[in-house]
């Protein structure tokens, strides 16, 4: 469903990502891994429109979405989260979620000002969707909370929830468990699996090898901006280039 074709990004002439191609298939969990500075986030940002690739193309369902602004890419069915937990921390949980649904509705200036029947319908629709997601996240009782009152893990979940609001067909998660302890990580892992079980394709960047090995269907490995391996967790575990890139033991850490 998603295709990246020889993506390259140069910063001041230096290649952060060089000639990376891969595919994401409907319904799978694909993980992108690599040591720090391998170009994972840059790649991610090119996929979601934050950066424009220096060269290369991005396709979603066969449509060329290269160079589209992030807010346009969302409408193509692809949603993302950010590495550092990114929320609207001045707003309540429920508000955070409803914002994520706005693009699906016609809730514009005039509808809102005049409270048209359309407005009422959309507003209710957004609310119901938010309640649905809250339940999915297990945050129903916190809907009126402001963000700082949430735990680290709850915030991570909410970030995923916001991305889910717009009913994306593909979800891109940037280190969804960064900074969490094992127990919390497990809970988030289960959440991701449930998302996939609902039929949403997931692409994930992660550091935690153990978690990835258990979660991902396929893995793409980057090093120094280049793709050095691609395959199932088992294949990756035994891939010489990957082991070297991680200085041997770290893969199993």
């Amino acid at each position, binding site marked *: 469903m998603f295709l990246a074709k020889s993506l390259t990004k140069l910063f001041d002439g230096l290649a952060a990502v060089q000639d990376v191609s891969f595919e994401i298939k409907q319904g799978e969990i694909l993980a992108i891994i690599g040591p720090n500075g391998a170009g994972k986030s840059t790649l991610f940002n090119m996929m979601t429109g934050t950066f424009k690739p220096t060269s290369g193309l991005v396709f979603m369902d066969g449509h060329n979405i290269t160079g589209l602004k992030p807010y346009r890419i969302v409408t193509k069915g692809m949603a993302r989260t950010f590495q550092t937990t990114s929320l609207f921390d001045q707003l309540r949980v429920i508000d955070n979620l409803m*914002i994520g649904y706005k*693009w699906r509705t016609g809730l514009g200036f005039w509808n809102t000002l005049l409270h048209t029947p359309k407005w009422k319908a959309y507003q209710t629709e957004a609310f119901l969707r938010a309640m649905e997601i809250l339940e999915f996240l297990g945050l129903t009782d916190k809907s009126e909370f*402001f963000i700082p009152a949430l735990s680290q893990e709850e915030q991570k979940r909410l970030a995923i929830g916001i991305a889910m609001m717009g009913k994306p067909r593909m979800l891109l998660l940037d280190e969804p468990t960064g900074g969490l302890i094992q127990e919390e990580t497990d809970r988030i892992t289960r959440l991701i699996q449930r998302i996939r079980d609902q039929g949403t394709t997931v692409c994930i960047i992660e550091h935690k090898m153990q978690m990835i090995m258990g979660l991902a269907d396929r893995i793409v490995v980057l090093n120094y901006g280049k793709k050095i391996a691609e395959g199932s967790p088992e294949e990756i575990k035994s891939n010489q280039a990957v082991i070297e890139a991680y200085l041997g033991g770290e893969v199993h850490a």
Partner: protein
Amino acid sequence: MFTKPIHIKLFFLAVLIAALLLPLFISDAYMFQVVIMSILFAIATCAMNLIIGFTGQASLAHGAFFGIGAYGVAILTKAGVSFWLALPAAAVMAVLIGLPVGLISLRTRGHYFAIVTLCFGVIMWIVAGNWIELTGGENGIFGIAPPGDILVPLIGRIDFSSQAAQYYLALAFLLLTLWALYRIVYSVFGLTFMAVRNNEALADAVGINTFTTKLISFEAANFIAALAGGLYAIVIGAVSPSAAGYGLTFNFLIYLILGGIATLSGSVIGAFAIPILMESLQFLQDYQLLIFGALLVVVIIYFPMGFVGGLRRLNQIIADRRRRKKSEAVHVSG
């Protein structure tokens, strides 16, 4: 999801009734004047709140758009156009002028946006002082007649040169502004403004066209500011460059911040409290501004979220504490 509890609604109803009856209690032309002007400033401050408070873009051209409304009404009514037509026309003019300004300045962010809009504001102010054929230069346009009498069923003939009529006219526009802002702010659409203010990258990533959102907010603010300016033109009866100056922008900004940024009532409270404070400091004469300047610094240090923001924060702390206690109790029992 955005409804208010019943006692709050009753309270606002009481305030509304008090506002409607106020002219019966003010016999003094001076206080009346201060109140009328405060209403006009409150309208402009509410508009500023939309772009600065809710959308987080520090537009410092606000005074200039107020001025466009004032000059628009002055020029059109002088040319014989009815005030009731001139006012919306002037406001639309502000939106049209705001379009290129917004398209250029919204490309920048943060301090840069503030300064670019300040520059636009200053340029419009200079133009107001020098385009003599259109604006009358520094002398401005004077002898602007109040709107003609209108006949209202049940009430009878309204003469807009009286302070009471001006008061109700201004009040009607303030209520209209608050009504519109209330609808916008407490809605999913309004949430997108706050989303842009709070986290532009995330807003972008969840499908919000942040540029358009900012532009809509900017233009809505300009429209309302121009309405306030148009009313100013007929209440004061003369328009000169000071009605389009950056001094006005700073005043609105002070009302906004001290009243409580990003709260609907804060703008109104600020726009009433500060001019009244300034008036009551008149007895200090030469030391009036000395004291005011120092007060401003002290207040911003101790009440960074303004008056309403401070109370809201207090409320939140209490609520959080109560909630925490409750959840602790649940844990114990469970």
